[in-house]
């Protein structure tokens, strides 16, 4: 399949999976949510394997790496500050703790993965 056809295919799969996942959240159906996410990922990867042209190359990976790092920095800092602010102001304290803890987990995960890839070496 050509790349343009894959983009349309990916859009359709994303819309269907996203719609199903949203419905699952509203109807509080965890099983349907998991199925829609997993099915979406499997179908997208299956479609990717059928594309004749190159979809992702080193430039795409490098751009993604840079964007991910920035997103991580912004998200990590903003969730940490928001969580601390909520806890300090005694407003939505549980949400504040959730944000602060998730920010900590994100940072720990980043440090772990960074250490792993630093030792492994990236070709």
């Amino acid at each position, binding site marked *: 399949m050509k790349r343009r056809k894959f983009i349309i295919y990916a859009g359709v799969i994303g819309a269907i999976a996203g719609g199903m996942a949203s419905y699952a959240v509203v109807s509080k159906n965890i099983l349907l949510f998991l199925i829609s996410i997993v099915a979406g990922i499997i179908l997208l990867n299956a479609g990717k394997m059928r594309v004749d*042209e*190159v979809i992702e*190359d*080193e*430039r795409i990976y490098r751009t993604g790496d840079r964007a991910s790092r920035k997103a991580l920095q912004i998200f990590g800092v903003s969730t940490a500050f928001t969580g601390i602010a909520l806890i300090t102001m005694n407003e939505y304290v549980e949400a504040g703790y959730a944000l602060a803890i998730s920010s900590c987990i994100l940072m720990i995960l980043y440090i772990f993965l960074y250490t792993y890839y630093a030792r492994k070496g990236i*070709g």
Partner: protein
Amino acid sequence: MKTRIKEYRARHNMTQAELAELVGVRRETIVFIEKGKYNPSLKLAHKIAKVFNRKIEDIFIFDD
């Protein structure tokens, strides 16, 4: 970093898409390399040089 890819492509009568396919990247990546907006990895630079049967330093001109 400047490149002479466009010059070598013209010599070999090759389009950007053809070169991209030979070295396994997207056409847009070749465009970015030619414009000097993307520095390829050593591996990719070597592949491009090999297509034109030249050395890397013949294709890519490093600014000192």
